[in-house]
């Protein structure tokens, strides 16, 4: 009471904190400007380029021109789906087994799975190519054993292998994180209630780690469908994916418009598949009693 009477000139605390709140809200202004200028505006430019011809007139021709790239789209989607599925099939058991190791071993395995993630993608891809190339170690070993060399680089298999190799850690890490958060008592409870190993897996472990699977699938699918370095190196330039085509189209001013249209379509494709997947995972999650 006494203190208050000493400071009669101060505005009442409520309005002072309101004032302070307004100043704090203003702290977001530079950030808001930045996002509008460098995130929203570029997206609008993609739209603009996708729906205009070289002279700036409105046209749908870029979108219809994409018809010639139908095969590229199908191949890209198929590759990304296959690579994601393989990563899930390999990565899910790996994450499960990792989470069953001792604390100490888990820590080491974490470092080992993160090291490739921290290495640049170019380096990993280049290393894999060096190993599998026609003049590489694998084929020279096969030759010394008197076997036929495997033409992996330049084949569909090679590109998919590259995607799996590069992005597997991105699948394993979120699933592993979900696994470590899983309360082991649930598993014991399911055994007590008469589940066998498989039932525990499908009814307890899988539903409870679905969030990790969803983020893992996203983190593998999105870079797989949009990559161009992997197909350049492990496809030996013979296999064209959406990423390669976009990259090529943006090397020449005259094809910017088609390139923008293609980027737009890819963005929409990814958006649709992510929405479907999130919906699917929500439903699955909802089924857990």
């Amino acid at each position, binding site marked *: 009471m006494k203190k208050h009477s000493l400071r009669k000139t101060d505005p009442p605390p409520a309005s*002072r904190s309101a004032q302070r709140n307004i100043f704090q809200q203003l702290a977001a202004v530079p950030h808001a400007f930045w996002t509008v200028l460098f995130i929203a505006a570029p997206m609008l430019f993609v739209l603009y380029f996708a729906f205009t011809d070289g002279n700036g007139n409105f046209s749908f021709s870029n979108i219809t021109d994409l018809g010639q790239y139908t095969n590229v789209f199908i191949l890209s989607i198929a590759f990304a789906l296959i690579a994601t599925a393989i990563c899930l099939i390999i990565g899910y058991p790996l994450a499960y087994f990792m989470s069953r190791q001792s604390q100490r071993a888990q820590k080491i395995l974490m*470092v080992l799975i993160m090291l490739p993630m921290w290495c640049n993608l170019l*380096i990993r891809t*280049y290393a894999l190519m060096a190993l599998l190339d026609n003049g590489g170690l694998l084929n020279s070993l096969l030759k010394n054993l008197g076997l036929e060399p495997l033409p992996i680089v330049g084949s569909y298999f090679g590109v998919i292998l590259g995607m799996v*190799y590069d992005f597997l850690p991105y699948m394993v890490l979120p699933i592993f994180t979900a696994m470590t958060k899983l309360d082991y008592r649930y598993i014991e409870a399911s055994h007590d209630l008469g589940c066998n190993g498989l039932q525990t897996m499908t009814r307890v472990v899988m539903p409870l780690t679905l969030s990790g699977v969803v983020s893992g699938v996203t983190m593998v699918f999105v870079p797989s469908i949009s990559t161009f370095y992997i197909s350049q190196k492990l496809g030996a330039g013979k296999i064209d994916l959406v990423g390669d085509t976009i990259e090529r189209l943006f090397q020449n001013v005259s094809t910017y418009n088609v*390139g923008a249209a293609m980027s737009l379509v890819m963005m929409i494709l990814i958006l649709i598949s992510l929405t479907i997947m999130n919906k699917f995972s929500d439903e699955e999650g909802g089924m857990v009693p």
Partner: protein
Amino acid sequence: MKFLSKCYISLIFFLLYIPIVVLIVFSFNESGSLAEFSGFTLGWYEELFHDDEAFSALRNSLLLAISSAFIATVLGTFGALGLHRMRRRYIRKPIMTLTNIPMMNPDIVTGVSMMLLFVAVASFLGTRELFGFGTLLIAHVTFNLPYVILSVMPRFQQLDKSLSEAAQDLGCTPSKAFFKVELPEIIPGIVSALMMSFTLSLDDFVISHFVSSPNFQTLPLYVYNQTAHNVKFSMYALSALIVAVILVILLAVNFAGSAADRKSRKGGRS
């Protein structure tokens, strides 16, 4: 079962590491062949260390990573503060959605969209020299922003308002209360934002590829250009060095982390 699972883990990690190990071993190969190891040499490393382009690329990468991490963290921290205090959903929601776009989009779309913006601005200004450090800096700050918000925002949300009020009741001015009570709570988020931005920026190739010019190369762009056509053994040496540096950092962080753990546990016991 236990044995089988250990076998499975070993097998996958073995496959994951063979290419990297082969790359490191063959970076010391005398003959410049990937087929067989003929003799030990440091020649490729010597070639790398005499390559001025590699050093300027390294310098550019560090410069870009430090400056973009700093700008993104400052911008994003104030942004997170403002957005946290913002009560109007119709302003807050669109800004958050916009911020997250670079995180959701594939890198190639982010890169292409920024390139189109810069191309349009360049043709508006009638200049050709727009691309370079400036455009790279803008692009890197932009793709770092969502990660900064992601690591700082929860810190603001976890702040206990009554703590700051208590500080003010005990005689702190509002700004003093902010620096003494709220800031220490937020700092871990800011530090992780800085580190994440720094590594993301250092690692980025795809977005940089679209907004750079030949006279300002970062390390990943340099590797890309060097490996575009032919096999270069000095690139194996460079990659081996990068892997070694990352390994040392990861081990150091982990070791420091567990040492601190042990210390705090000991402290708790005594």
